[in-house]
């Protein structure tokens, strides 16, 4: 990837106003309004990720707040061009959510069939219909890319990403050699990385 290239595939629909990098720089300079703008832009995604990982809705809200607080505190350490702000934010919220799960000793143990498919979100979506449409479109594209993965590859990366399992735990859970788990993970991420290029072209 090109470090200086902006990852437009990650930009949410409300692409107005300062870009994410500028907001993070303002946060690092102590501008709390920038934190508010970043929250407006990314809290729907981060909350959804938190809900995907932790069992309890209240826990998810607390994780969301913790994640943005950590982003505020570590804004000075954010390095532009390392996967973009959304990568940074999703890494933070995922890490906080998994910490919460470990602290609770409770995983989200719902059967995976009960998790609604991407794009079939219930209740209110983002503020404007246009934004909703664009976000749905983005989610649909990404979901399609993930759906194109062979099921065993998808399962491997999802166990790692949403359940916080290590490769040896995944190997034990799936009854597969460690090398196989490694390979599946690598193939899956490489395919997703290829789709990133497509998103960039589509996103302009």
């Amino acid at each position, binding site marked *: *990837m090109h470090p200086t290239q902006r990852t437009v595939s990650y930009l949410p629909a409300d692409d107005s106003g300062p870009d994410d990098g500028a907001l993070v720089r303002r946060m690092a300079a102590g501008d709390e309004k920038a934190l508010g703008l970043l929250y407006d832009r990314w*809290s729907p995604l981060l909350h959804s990720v938190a809900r*995907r990982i932790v069992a309890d809705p*209240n826990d998810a809200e607390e994780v969301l707040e913790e994640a943005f*607080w950590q982003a505020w505190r570590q804004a000075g350490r954010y390095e532009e061009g390392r996967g973009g702000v959304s990568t940074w934010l999703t890494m933070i919220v995922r890490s906080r959510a998994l910490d919460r799960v470990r602290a609770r000793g409770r995983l989200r143990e719902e059967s995976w069939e009960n998790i609604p498919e991407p794009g079939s*979100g219930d209740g209110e979506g983002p503020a404007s219909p246009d934004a909703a449409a664009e976000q749905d479109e*983005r989610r649909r594209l990404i*979901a399609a890319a993930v759906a194109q993965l062979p099921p065993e590859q998808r399962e491997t990366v999802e166990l790692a990403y949403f359940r916080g399992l290590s490769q040896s735990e995944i190997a034990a859970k799936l009854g597969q050699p460690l090398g196989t788990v490694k390979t599946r993970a690598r193939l899956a991420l490489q395919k997703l990385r290829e789709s990133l290029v497509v998103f960039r072209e589509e996103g302009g």
Partner: protein
Amino acid sequence: MSLDTEHENVQAALAAEALDALDGEEREALHAHLAGCAECRAELESLREAASLLAHTAPHVPLAPARSDRIRARLLARAAADVRGGEAAEPVVAAPETRVIPIASRRRSALPAWLAAAASVLIAIGLGAYALSLRGRVSSLEQQTASLSRDRGRLESTLAEREATLAALAGPEVRVITLASTQERAPSGRMFWNPVRRRYTFFAYNLPQVRPGREYQLWLITPAGPVAAPTFRPGRDGAGSVEGAYDVPNEQIRAVAVTEEPAGGLPKPTGEVLIVGNAAE
């Protein structure tokens, strides 16, 4: 293991690392390699970016606007307090079986910074009000003290006068001059004359009321003529008194007299003598 082999192993491990799925030892080995290999660092970053796409596959679960607004407002308040030097550097992780509202600071008291800031403002206001009320109390006490000082000064000077009067009256050297009326009516007077202290205290009795604008004046009679002493007005009972010092040589005081004069007195008597007494032994 050759460098190439190591590099191959690392490449195999990078995807797992991008998913934070590496176990301890392998992870340490990878990080050691990454420290000296820019190519692998770049590869890891791009794989991390790819892994983060998985976040977008999480089903969209909207946050109720009121709850979202509360979280947003709390974050901004915390951040504003943080700019002024507030909270703990790392978010607090909930302990098991504990509901943590993540506003507690790990580094300091259990007061979140924004709350502490608000409290300190209130405390400052409280201190300001308290200081004002203290200032008020101090100034009122100062006024009381000043007024008491004035009272005390008045009492002390009154007491000093009384003591001087007593001293003037009580000494063995004090002579008493009795003044008798020159008229049918019987006004009278008595002067306590202390030649050592060169003071006199004069009392008059049964004096007729003076006309408006007039007062009685005491005179020390000397060979050179009357020497003016202070004036006085009798009370309703006709009694009056006056005291003072004199600088006439004692032996020259031959007599004392009282006349009626314009208020404030005159250097030389103009009215007729009401009572008179001989100072001679």
